[in-house]
């Protein structure tokens, strides 16, 4: 093509003369520029291919395959993303108040954070729960707590996201039963459970059972929901925590996709048709500081997923090929030094998520490197989203950065490198093998170590941390504190429930649950719902499952 050669010739010329002349007077700041994931960055970009030839195949229009530019045709022109602030702390009563406050402030969805004992299937009175009850989220022991938590919140109107993995089935059961008490049938309930155990093994650490039974539980949920809860997102396959653990943008997408492939495979091998469940799979990603790389990351992820579903799994329904995702701004970028600076970081990350076409977004609060966020800082975080949505104008057209030479270059590069990882993992025998051998953990840790080294050496500048530092007064930030009394209160409540429930019915239901767990071909959801209904505790239910399934031991590679 004469035209193309023409551009290339000009480029060489420009580089050899104009740039050389310029840099002789003003040398570039660094010898090599690269993105956070190490993709080299050139001085500038130019059309490297004729868009008329590749546009439809690589980008096409929003809402059409391969969905690079967005999964809906009109995106935010029709409906803005869901602003969903992750919250929860202390007792169910306190969290209920915070949810009502957030809904009043214009938040459009709930996002429930659970404390660690709940996430690990321990009751509040378990010795291992010491110091942890109500700390990073709300403490839930029985259905009773869930009733209090959602009191006065109309479950037919809000959609609820629950960050719960190993015991996801139990919390889902509780949600269904609270819905029933509000006269909302389960098919009308809208929301998401995280339910993504594979990333727990490599990044977040709140696993209970080994991979095999864990995948069974997940598949059971897929099957149950495909029949009974058509509006429920059965899983939120999460790159967020992989990124927080230190992975770069490419690894975040690659390892998340590898996990997703495993879930789809295990559902298919359990006899489910791909199009019956794939439309309810959702994703959860991180929005980091490297603005353009992040935007490109989201676009590349959509294209990769569409191809995986269509080409690898033969999905027919376009909905099965759409990558729908929630985004949270990167917690690990927040600094304890000069915490006000975090507001600016979160703003950039918000832009990344929105320009990348997210379906919902949580923005972190400026004080989260110091402790739980105060009400005021949560409000600022929410206001950041609202300003981007309503004042910046970036939501007025779909994929505004599409066609930028730089963005398309990065999108292609990320996609290519993601495929390289996926091929490698496939060759290892799949993601579970890659986890068991420690490959994925090692990759993440090496990236984390490199990143930190760059910060330590000053090669990577973090404002206020390794440059532009100031002597800071002791911060008088108003940090939310969870009082130690929470555990005592929670234990009292638990004892009360245990006294008033039908204990022989609980025992009976737990026995049935155990029998079900021992039979691989049965779905665990119905007996879990039965046990929850009788106010069996999370600790009791997980105890039964631990007995049958055993516990996972971490495979540490440092």
């Amino acid at each position, binding site marked *: 093509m004469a035209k193309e050669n023409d551009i290339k010739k000009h480029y060489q010329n420009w580089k050899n003369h104009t740039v050389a002349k310029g840099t002789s007077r003003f040398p570039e700041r660094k010898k090599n520029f690269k993105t956070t994931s190490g993709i080299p960055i050139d001085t500038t970009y130019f059309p490297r291919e004729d868009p008329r030839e590749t546009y439809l195949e690589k980008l096409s229009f929003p809402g059409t395959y391969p969905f690079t530019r967005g999964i809906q045709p009109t995106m935010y022109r029709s409906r803005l993303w869901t602003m969903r602030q992750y919250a929860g702390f202390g007792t169910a009563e306190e969290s209920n108040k915070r949810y009502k406050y957030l809904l009043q402030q214009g938040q459009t969805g709930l996002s429930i954070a659970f404390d660690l004992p709940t996430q690990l299937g321990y009751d509040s009175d378990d010795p291992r729960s010491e110091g942890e009850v109500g700390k990073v989220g709300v403490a839930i022991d029985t259905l009773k707590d869930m009733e209090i938590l959602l009191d006065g919140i109309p479950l037919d109107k809000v959609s609820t996201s629950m960050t719960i993995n190993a015991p996801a089935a139990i919390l889902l059961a509780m949600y269904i039963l609270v819905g029933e008490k509000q006269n909302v049938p389960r098919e009308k309930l809208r929301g998401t459970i995280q339910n993504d155990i594979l990333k727990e093994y490599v990044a977040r650490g709140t696993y209970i059972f080994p991979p095999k039974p864990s995948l069974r539980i997940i598949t059971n949920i897929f099957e149950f929901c495909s029949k009974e809860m058509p509006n429920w997102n059965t899983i939120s396959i999460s790159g967020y925590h992989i990124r927080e653990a230190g992975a770069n943008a490419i690894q975040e997408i690659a390892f998340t996709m590898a996990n997703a492939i495993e879930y789809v495979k295990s559902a298919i091998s359990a006899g489910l048709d791909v199009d019956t469940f794939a439309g309810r799979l959702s994703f959860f990603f991180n929005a980091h500081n490297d603005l353009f790389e992040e935007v490109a990351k989201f676009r590349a992820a959509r294209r990769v997923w569409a191809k995986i579903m269509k080409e690898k799994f033969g999905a027919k329904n376009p909905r099965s090929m759409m990558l729908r995702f929630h985004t949270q701004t990167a917690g690990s970028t927040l600094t304890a030094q000069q915490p006000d600076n975090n507001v600016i970081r979160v703003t950039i990350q918000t832009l990344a998520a929105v320009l990348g076409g997210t379906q919902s977004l949580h923005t972190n609060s400026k004080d989260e490197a110091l402790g739980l966020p105060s009400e005021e800082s949560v409000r600022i975080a929410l206001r950041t989203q609202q300003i981007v949505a309503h004042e910046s104008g970036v939501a007025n057209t779909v994929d505004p950065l599409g066609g930028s030479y730089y963005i398309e270059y990065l999108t292609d590069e990320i996609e290519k490198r993601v495929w390289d990882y996926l091929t490698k993992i496939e060759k290892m025998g799949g993601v579970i093998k890659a986890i068991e*051998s*420690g490959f994925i953990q090692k990759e993440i840790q090496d990236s984390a170590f490199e990143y930190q080294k760059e910060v330590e050496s000053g090669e990577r500048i973090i404002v206020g941390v390794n440059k532009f530092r100031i002597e800071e007064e002791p911060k008088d930030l108003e940090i939310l504190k969870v009082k130690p009394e929470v555990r005592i209160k929670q234990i009292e409540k638990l004892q009360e429930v245990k006294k008033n429930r039908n204990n022989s019915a609980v025992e009976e239901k737990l026995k049935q649950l155990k029998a079900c767990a021992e039979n691989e071909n049965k779905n665990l959801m119905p007996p879990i719902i039965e046990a929850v209904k009788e106010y069996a505790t999370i600790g009791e239910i997980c105890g039964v499952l631990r007995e049958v399934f*055993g516990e996972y*031991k971490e495979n*540490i590679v*440092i």
Partner: protein
Amino acid sequence: MNELVEGIISGNTRAISKAISLVENDGPDKIELLKEIHRYVGESVIIGITGPPGAGKSSLINVLIKEYRKQGKKVGILAIDPTSPFTGGALLGDRLRMQDHSTDENVFIRSLATRGHLGGISLATSDAVKILDAAGFEIILLETVGVGQAEIEIVEASDIVLLVLVPGYGDEIQVLKAGIIEIGDIYVINKADQMDATKLKTTIEYYLELSPDKNANHRKVVLTSSLTGSGVDSLIHEINSTYNFFRKKGILNERRKTRIRKEILRILNSRILESINQTFNGRNFDSSINKILNKKIDPYTIADSIFEEMKKRSQT
């Protein structure tokens, strides 16, 4: 010192761990301590566990501990990891797979770094073994990573050696090539839930049949899974019967004698070098080195003259 010895004999954790530090650091009281405890040593069964990285040695040890604890036995574990030759630092992460037993009074786990002594670690390791032995640990498990020279020396500190392998990583070829297979008394194919395990078992058994070693046909191959704990009981059974076989045939005694012989040699070796160091302290050998470099003289002649001078000095 007496306090420390009493502490060890009575099984006091702090005393044991301080004593191990003493031998590791080559502290001034080390020799005295080792002399003192010698009469309490010799009761433990010392099991060396080696194999390539990623074979699941630590997880296997975790389930072995569990089984031995069920039998009421006290178990001591020494996990040896390499020191970085560049920084002198070490990251000791093996015990984390054994943390199930971290609060059990009758389980003592200690991580040792090789500290750049290369094979020299074997001296510290066998001293540490003696301390655990004197402290009444009936079973002592020695774990080493990899299959290098240092590992072989550590293996020599054991009564019985388990070689842990995992199928599917191409290790079998490596192991056969390197002749490492000779060091195992029992072959453990871990993660036996994998299909290739049986294939690997056949390969090893075939190899053992061909082996010129007359005891080779007593060597057993055991399949285990440290995930489910399956096969561990039969592994322990094999350990016991091999141990008894060794005892009956005098192999155990032979091994212990070899160990003592080597130990004396190592001690002497270090003494002699130390005394050379003292005798010639401060003397400059640059001219000799230059002479050797310029082929005026050879290193043997230089060594001879040092040795002769040493002998003369020790006579006076």
